[in-house]
């Protein structure tokens, strides 16, 4: 319990200083907000091209597909706020040797590297995503009851853990290949597939996006849950994927540290 309190206190210090530092750039916040709004408008426009008179996309109606888009926007915002600033810095730590200092601290190194900072860049996207979900879900026939909402939140949390783990797994490879930090850009590009319901893809890709790169569990499954179409197996699968990914990311980080030889070598 004392350890948990220590970690929570550390987290508050981390994020307090990060936000204080970032708020110096107020113009950037405005620009990010504008970019997020324009980006969402463009995405919805592209999505609308798939819907004409009574068409559907992979069995999803317009409003249902908007819920998927909302979940995607939310996750993308979380990635900009939390994952990119933290995990993008790992490669710098490896290259400049400052990872040594992190490893010496009396705190879990994965915790430190994953939660050290926050950037307000994605906050507007998070808000827009939540807004879009709140607008589209009731129109798509979702009826929110407390239990259903709790389950949907649980699956969203699982999606976040899965996303984090995928990202951290890739970032960890920079221990060996300093130059491949762009690999996270490839991941981001592949994850944009999550803008659309997974059933809209041909069977081969659907399999790929479910088993190999679990895009389906990032956006489609949480959207199903929000729309009240979830089932126990779906919930179980989402939790399992999140648990396995997180376990893998942790095991891989330990393994990578075993091969870490500091910056000079």
């Amino acid at each position, binding site marked *: 319990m004392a350890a948990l309190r220590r970690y929570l206190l550390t987290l508050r210090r981390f994020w307090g200083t990060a936000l204080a530092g970032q708020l110096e750039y107020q113009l950037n916040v405005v620009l990010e907000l*504008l970019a997020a709004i324009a980006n969402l408008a463009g995405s919805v426009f*592209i999505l609308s091209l798939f819907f004409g008179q009574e068409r559907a*996309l992979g069995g999803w109606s317009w409003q249902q597909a908007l819920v998927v888009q909302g979940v995607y926007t939310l996750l993308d915002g979380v990635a900009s706020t939390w994952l990119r600033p933290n995990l993008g810095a790992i490669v710098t730590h490896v290259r400049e040797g400052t990872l040594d200092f992190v490893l010496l601290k009396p705190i879990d190194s994965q915790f430190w590297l994953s939660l050290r900072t926050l950037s307000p860049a994605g906050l507007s996207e998070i808000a827009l995503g939540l807004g879009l979900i709140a607008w589209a879900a009731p129109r798509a026939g979702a009826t929110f009851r407390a239990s259903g909402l709790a389950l949907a939140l649980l699956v969203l949390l699982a999606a976040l853990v899965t996303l984090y783990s995928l990202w951290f797994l890739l970032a960890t490879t920079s221990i060996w290949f300093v130059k491949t930090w762009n690999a996270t850009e490839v991941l981001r*590009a592949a994850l944009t597939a999550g803008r659309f319901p997974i059933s809209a893809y*041909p069977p081969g890709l659907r399999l790929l996006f479910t088993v190999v790169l679990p895009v389906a569990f990032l956006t489609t499954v949480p959207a199903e849950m929000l729309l009240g179409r979830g089932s126990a197996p779906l919930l179980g699968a989402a939790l399992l994927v999140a648990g396995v990914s997180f376990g893998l990311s942790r095991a891989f980080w330990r393994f990578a540290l075993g091969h870490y030889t500091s910056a000079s070598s």
Partner: protein
Amino acid sequence: MAIGSPLRKRGFRPARALLSSQFALMSEYRAEIALWALSGLLPFIMLALWRQAPAGAALGLGSLGLDRYFLSAYLVRQFSVVWVVFAFEEDALLGRLSPYLLQPLHPLWRYVAAHLAEQLTRLPFAAVIAAVFFLINPGAFWLPSVGQFVLAALATLGAFAIAFLLQSLIAALCFFSEKASALERLLFVPYLFFSGLLAPLAAFPQGVRAWAQWTPFPWLIDFPARLLAGLPVALGVGFAAELAWIAVLLPLALLLWRAGVRRYTAMGA
């Protein structure tokens, strides 16, 4: 300092030196450039969607046309990617720009050479991806005629020039503000949605398409990609639009650059 005058005076020697040194530099980053080429796979994801959706059939391109359009869109994008604002911002902030300004060559040429060299490094990766595409999808194989290929290459070069000038405008703003590259995000959004990278312009509603054609964006992907894919395209209009945008943007970029250099104090912005 007029752009182009050093080249005229001393022939092509500086150009060759610049290109070959930048190529050597870029070759060191092969792994990174391969990953960049991979991260441009978005058109293929969109192709999978368009092929599956009823809306794709309503486009009137046929499934072959769709395949070829999106592969061409991928290739055109690979050879018109521009990142001058990021390179320039770093150079300006770190003070590397100062020695460049002393050289008797407009610094923008250095970035042009870096981009061309990077495209050359990209060539093998783009070829591999096209080959994999044809292996998975042999029915879509086609070879454009020489004329088609030359026209498409010219249109892609025009697209590159427009994108480069647009970003140079933003880069020149780095002289006035430290964080001008944030503006690039605002430029990228309409590029992404109106260039034809995610959906051919033919899919747009009539009103939006008519309006989009007055922006530079459809000429950056849709026009060269249609040329390369052998789809019907208004040749004259396309090239005229590209030239018109270059004619508008080139003097603007140079003027803003000159005004910026005057403010430059060699210490960041």
